């Protein structure tokens, strides 16, 4: 394993450095934080208002009604939105991973370096993922501040599993995006293609629902959205974990193959 993955750390560091030195990456960060922050506040506001109205009604008519777990609802809705946001920004994060190298003609250097193709791919993927974790951390900070005001207090379990789910799903999307990026030298094309593929894998769930029986099950299982929804609700299902891990692995594998094949291609 060590030999296969090789000295990915150098690539990882380089990739991270390029993210943190790129103004474009910060713009993405700013937009992501702004949009998610606004959504969070709007969600929280509307949820608190609804629940307050419900409680007032209950006071009047007496007797306990259906129970509402406000922090859990907030967490789930917010993570649902974050999933959609991630769907949009992850192509942008992964588009440059290989396409830039192609554009700057440094891909030949990489392909012939002592670092294996797998090592390069893993390093780049981890770099992109780490950047996303950096995007996520401020969110988790103010989520934690809000959720700590829950009465009675909540357990950290679901919070952690839900964010783990987000990370796994984003890793899948980045991995696939990395593969697409390795096929072309144009970053925009890479981004658009990635978005198309990931969107397809997202909505294949709905198609699966429409069809029934075998195809329905197949498409449903392929759908990242379904597995993501399971995870953010706190359900650890081996099927979901296996599927997302497969996407991650597949992306890295195909990237390594593509770079290998690149050696003999023209243009």
């Amino acid at each position: 394993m060590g030999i296969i993955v090789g000295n990915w750390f150098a690539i990882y560091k380089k990739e991270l450095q390029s993210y943190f030195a790129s103004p474009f990456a910060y713009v993405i960060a700013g937009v992501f934080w702004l949009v998610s922050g606004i959504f969070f506040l709007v969600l929280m506001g509307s949820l608190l208002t609804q629940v307050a109205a419900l409680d007032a009604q209950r006071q009047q008519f007496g007797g306990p009604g259906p129970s509402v777990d406000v922090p859990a609802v907030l967490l789930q809705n917010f993570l649902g939105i974050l999933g959609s946001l991630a769907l949009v920004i992850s192509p942008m994060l992964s588009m440059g991973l290989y396409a830039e190298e192609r554009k700057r003609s440094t891909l030949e250097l990489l392909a012939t370096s002592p670092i294996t193709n797998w090592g390069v791919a893993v390093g780049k993927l981890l770099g992109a993922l780490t950047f996303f974790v950096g995007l996520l951390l401020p969110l988790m900070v103010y989520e934690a501040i809000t959720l700590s005001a829950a009465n009675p207090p909540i357990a950290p379990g679901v919070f952690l599993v839900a964010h783990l789910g987000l990370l796994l799903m984003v890793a899948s999307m980045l991995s696939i995006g990395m593969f697409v990026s390795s096929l072309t030298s144009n970053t925009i094309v890479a981004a658009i293609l990635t978005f198309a593929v990931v969107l397809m894998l997202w909505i294949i769930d709905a198609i699966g629902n429409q069809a029934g029986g075998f195809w329905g099950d197949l498409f449903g299982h392929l759908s990242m959205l379904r597995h993501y929804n399971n995870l953010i609700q706190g359900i650890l299902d081996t099927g979901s974990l296996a599927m997302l891990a497969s996407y991650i692995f597949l992306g890295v594998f195909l990237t390594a193959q593509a770079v290998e094949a690149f050696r003999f291609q023209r243009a």
Partner: protein
Amino acid sequence: MNLKLTKSKYWDYLPWLGIGLALVGLFAGIISRDWGPIPTGLLVSGGAIAAVWLLSKLSSREFWGQRSTQTNLNLFIAAFAMLLLLGLLNFVVARYPQRLDLSENQIFTLAPQSQQVARKLNAPLKVWLFLNEKDQASQSLLGNYRRLNSKYFSYEFVNPQQQPGLARMFEMKDYGDVYLEFGQRRQFVQNISPQQGGVLSESKLTNAISRLLTNREDRVYFLQGHGEHDLSKLTQARSALEERGYRVESLNLLEQPAQIPTPQPTSQPTPTAEPVPTPESGETPTASATGQPQLTTGATEDLAIPATANLVVISGPQRQLFESELEALERYLDQGGGLMVMLDPDNKVGLEPLLGEWGVTLDNRLVVDPTSQGVGLGATTPLVTNYGNHPITREFGNGISFYPGTQALVVAEKPTVESTPLLLTSEKSWAEKDSQLPEASLDPSRDLKGPLTLGVALNKRGVTDLAKQSRVVVFGNSSFATDAWFAQQLNQDVFVNSVVWLSKRDGEVLSISPRQPTDRRLVLDATRAQIVALLAAILFPLLGFGAAGTLFWKRR
């Protein structure tokens, strides 16, 4: 020469066109489930185009010579092999999934009773849902059942307009009806049309399945005529029982045609079959009460509980029962019947001797529980979180049930009776003798200190034939099962489980309450809310844009 150039410019994009068309055709066919001319046409033409390109490539010698071809081929083969491998792996994992539900209260896992019923299936059972919209919640619920028993449990969403024959076979009445099919038998579950906002309920589904599996019809008779709760006040209890395959009827023993009147003297009016006016004391009506000379009909038939009764419920009587009625109840119990008695305090109805035989004495003092005030109920509505070790209450854990206006029961050991207290109040409660005073406090000389028993389950010892074993459940309160209180917390489980136990469905699934999330609120004070708003909408975005701006500026 020219032709060749044009060919090579666009030719290599052909396979993508072919694949694209084929995919469109594939999806069209799958979604519409109708492999008509358009889907198949697209599929075939797309496949043909891709095939043509492939063939031309394969047949050109120069193609095979290129090294890029070889490596590309390697790439495709490796990719294909990996896809196959991963596909197989995921298929196996999907077949035998393991799930860990980390959500609080495990709301996404089936109740143990549902799991039990799903596993017990030993013949194919299919759930038919006659509606188009496949909402997430119903699907995941059905998926949960299927995962437990994929051999025999299946479900299908059917468009009633596309398959009218199927709809007719089930006698579908409304769009959104859900039916079960088990062998030759069909069962209606519920209606979940989106207009009504219906969602498939786990308890209804499990109940319907268990009903199909057991194929019993049990009858519950609610005694009437002494001021008991009318069935119109017990609609929720009634529907909960009917869901579980019970037939609920009211029973007024004095209206029973079991009495055969002897021929009357012609000058006197024949007595009508109306309930006799309520007596002031425990005596049978005399001439003075009715104002007419009392006619004796010389009825020789005694009152009797109908033989089809699986159990009798006496819910909150306020007036005396007649000797004949009490005797009928005794006879019924002796033959192995089931009786549920719910007696509110301050009501002397004449059941004391019968209960005394079973070792139960009514305390008749109002139970006061200061802990109830903590959850917004009055102190005269005691909370119970402590349950006895009995099939009725075994699965309750520390769940909550409450009983507005109740008395305690004192249970003495009797050699022929096996008794288990079901409901125990907290230690802070007591039975208050002077319940008229505005401020109640424990007076040890007049009051009974808690914990108090509010409900007890009794059965005759030593009777090996289950059908002949008489069972009684006594509660010191009747309101907990009425419509205002029935659906609260575990109240319905207490009632339904008692009925199930009394009707001796011992192998049966006991009641399911839908899992609820913990009731929680976010208590944000102003500063905290402000901090969050600041961080979320202003601080972090500014950080991002600021960094971007600085970098741009530096690069100039």
